[in-house]
C-alpha cells in the first residue's frame, strides 16, 4: 500500500513582529503531532532547512510595506494552493498602518541617517489587497487554538469553526460581567470579532479591538455612546480605533471621525502654547 503523501506547509513573514508565527511554535504540546500530520516545509523561524515549493498550505504573517514585498507576495501566492493569513498585520496592515495617515517620507527623514536608501511604500496594507486570500485568521497576536483549528480544518477539508460574532459572546461564555455596562468602561468588544477568549475584559480592561472589526461593526453607535454616556474624549476614541486595525475600514473611518472632533481641541492647545 502506498503511503499517503503528507501535505506541505509553508510559513511566510512580511512586515510584522513575528508574534503570530511564534504562536505556531508556541503549540508545544501539539507541535510534534502536527509535524506528523503536515510537512512543515518552509518555516525559517523554526529551521533553516527549507523545501522548495509548491506548497499545499501557506500561512502568511505581516503586511505589505515595500515594493519588494509587493512582488514577493505574488510569488508566495503562485507557490501556494491555499493561502491563509495570520494576524492583524496581514489582515489590515497592522500597527504600522498608522503611517497611512501621515507622510512616510517625513518619518524616514527623521529616523534614518540616509533616508534615500529606504525604499518603502506610502501605505502598509493587508495581504488581501495584493493577492487572493483563502482565509483570514484574526488577532494581534492570533490565538493558537484558532490556529490549530484552521490547520486542522484545512487538513480535513472542512470549514473552520471560527466565529464572526462579537467579543461579547466570549465574555458571557467566560462569565465576565460586562464592564461597559457595570463600570462605564469604553470597550471595543461589541464591534470586535471574537477569538481571543475575551482576555482584556476578564482583567477589567476594555477590549482594544486587536481582532479587528466584526461583521457589521456599528462603530458610529459605539462612538456616540462613548461620547455621550462615558464622556470619552475624541483623542481617546481616535486611539482606540487607530491602533491594531487602524486601516480596517470601519475602524479607519471611526478613528478619522473622532479626529475630526479633535480638531478644536488641538487648536485650543496650540493657541495656549503660543
Amino acid at each position, binding site marked *: 500500500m502506498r503511503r499517503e503523501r503528507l501535505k506541505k506547509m509553508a510559513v511566510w513573514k512580511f512586515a510584522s513582529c513575528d508574534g503570530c508565527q511564534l504562536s505556531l511554535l508556541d503549540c508545544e504540546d501539539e507541535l510534534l503531532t502536527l509535524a506528523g500530520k503536515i510537512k512543515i516545509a518552509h518555516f525559517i523561524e523554526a529551521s533553516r532547512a527549507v523545501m522548495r515549493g509548491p506548497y499545499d498550505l501557506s500561512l502568511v504573517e505581516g503586511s505589505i510595506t515595500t515594493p519588494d514585498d509587493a512582488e514577493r507576495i505574488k510569488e508566495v501566492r503562485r507557490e501556494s494552493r491555499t493561502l491563509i493569513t495570520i494576524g492583524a498585520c496581514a489582515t489590515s496592515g497592522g500597527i504600522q498602518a498608522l503611517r497611512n495617515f501621515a507622510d512616510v517620507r517625513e518619518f524616514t527623514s527623521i529616523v534614518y541617517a540616509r533616508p534615500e536608501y529606504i525604499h518603502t511604500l506610502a501605505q502598509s496594507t493587508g495581504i488581501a489587497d495584493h493577492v487572493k486570500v483563502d482565509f483570514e485568521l484574526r488577532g494581534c497576536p492570533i490565538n493558537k487554538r484558532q490556529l490549530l483549528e484552521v490547520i486542522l480544518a484545512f487538513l480535513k477539508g472542512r470549514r473552520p469553526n471560527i466565529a*464572526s460574532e*462579537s467579543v461579547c459572546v466570549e465574555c458571557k*461564555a467566560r462569565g465576565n*460581567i460586562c464592564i461597559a455596562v457595570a463600570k462605564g468602561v469604553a470597550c471595543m468588544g461589541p464591534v470586535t470579532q471574537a477569538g481571543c477568549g475575551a482576555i482584556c475584559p476578564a482583567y477589567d480592561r476594555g477590549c482594544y479591538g486587536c481582532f479587528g472589526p466584526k461583521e457589521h461593526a456599528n462603530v458610529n453607535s459605539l462612538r456616540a455612546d462613548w461620547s455621550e454616556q462615558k464622556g470619552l474624549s475624541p483623542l481617546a476614541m481616535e486611539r482606540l480605533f487607530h491602533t491594531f486595525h487602524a486601516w480596517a475600514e470601519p475602524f479607519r473611518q471611526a478613528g478619522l471621525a473622532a479626529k475630526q472632533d479633535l480638531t478644536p481641541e488641538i487648536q485650543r492647545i496650540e493657541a495656549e502654547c503660543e
Partner: protein
Amino acid sequence: MATLSADIGVTYRMRAGDLGALFSTLHAANFLTIGPRLSGEAIILEELNGPEDLPVGWGDEQEAGRYRLRRRADQAFFGYNLGPESWKKFLTPQRQLLWRARRQGATFTIEQPERLGGGPQQLAFIGVRACELAAIRVQERVREVSGQPANDLIDAKCRVATPFLVGVTCAQSAATCFCTSMGTGPALGPPGSSGVGYDLALTEFPSEDDHHFTIEARSERGADIASHIPRQLATEEECDAVRQQSDTTAALMRRHLKLDKPAQLFQDSLEHPHWDEVASRCLSCANCTLVCPTCFCTNIEDTSDLSGDVAERWLRWDSCFHLDFSYLHGGSVRQTTRSRYRQWLTHKLGTWHEQFGSSGCVGCGRCIAWCPVGIDLTVELEALTLSPEVTGVQTGKYEHP
C-alpha cells in the same frame, strides 16, 4: 431533628437567622444550592454554601445600558434586582458536549456525557423571582412544542432534572423592570399561574430588630424541606404584608410595555422606518439575547482533534443577531442589522405567541440594562406603534426576513 410537618399553601413565619436551616436541609437532601452571589461588579448566580454567600446588604441601580451595585441601608439577603445571568446558565448551558466519537481501528465508539444534574446531586435554585419562574416555563414550553433540541440524544443527555425552586417575592423593582406589563410578577402566584411549578415561596422583611421571612410550601417536596425549618404560623397581618409588598413593588414599576395586538402591530409595521432608526444604534453584538432568560437559539459545532481519532459534537448558544445564524445555501438571509433586530423583536413579542402560546418576553428588563448602548425595547415598541405614514415610508424598499 424533630420536625413539624408543613402544609402546602400555609404561610409560616421564619426568623432571618434560620435561613441557614433552608440550606442545610437542602444539602442534607443531597441538593446543590445555587443562587445569587456578589462577584466583582454585579450579582451573579453560583453555587452557595449558605446564607453568608448571599449578597447581604447589597442592592443595585439599573437603567438602559447601565448597572451599578449599591449598598443598602439594611441587611437584606434578597434586596437586589436581577443581575446579568439567568437560570438558563444551568438549565441550558452556553456550551454542552453532546457526544464524543473515538476511532478504534476500523470502527468507532460513541461516548455520551453524564446527564447534567442527573447525577448524585440535584440542583436547588435559591431566590428565583416571579418573572424568572415565568421564563423557565417559557423555555420548557419551547422544548415541549418544538421538540427543540430536535435530537433525542440532546434531549436525553442535556436537560437537567427539574431543580428544586425557591421563589422570592420582589420587594422592589429596578427601573428596567416591566413584569407587570407581561403579567409575570412581581408577586409569586400560585404554582402554574404564570410560571413553572415551584417548591417554596419566600418573602423577606428586613429590619434591624425583626428581620424575618414568610415561607410557604408550594409542592410536596417543598413541604418536606419546610418541615425541617424552624417556623411558626404567620399572623393575618404578616400574610397581608406579603401581598402588600408585591403590590407596592408593582405600583412603583416605572417601565411599561404596551402591546394589545402583537400580530397585527408587527404585520403592519414590517416596513416601518423605525427599524432603520434602531438599526443605526444596534451593535448586533448579541448581548440582549445572551442575557435574555428565554432566548433559546443554538448552533451545532463539530470538532476534530489533531490525532484525527476523536471527534466531538457541541451544542452552543447562538443568536439571531449573528450573520451566520441565518446562513442558508448561498449566504445569510438576514444581512442587515435592521432585519436581525426586527426578527428578534417580532419573534420575541409577536410570533412567539403563535409558535409557543405565550409571549417570549417576561419583562425582566435584562436586555435593556445590558445593551451596551442602552436600546430599550419598550421605547422601540412605542415608536413602532406610531403610524409609518407620518414619516412617509416607502414600502417594499427592504429585503424580507
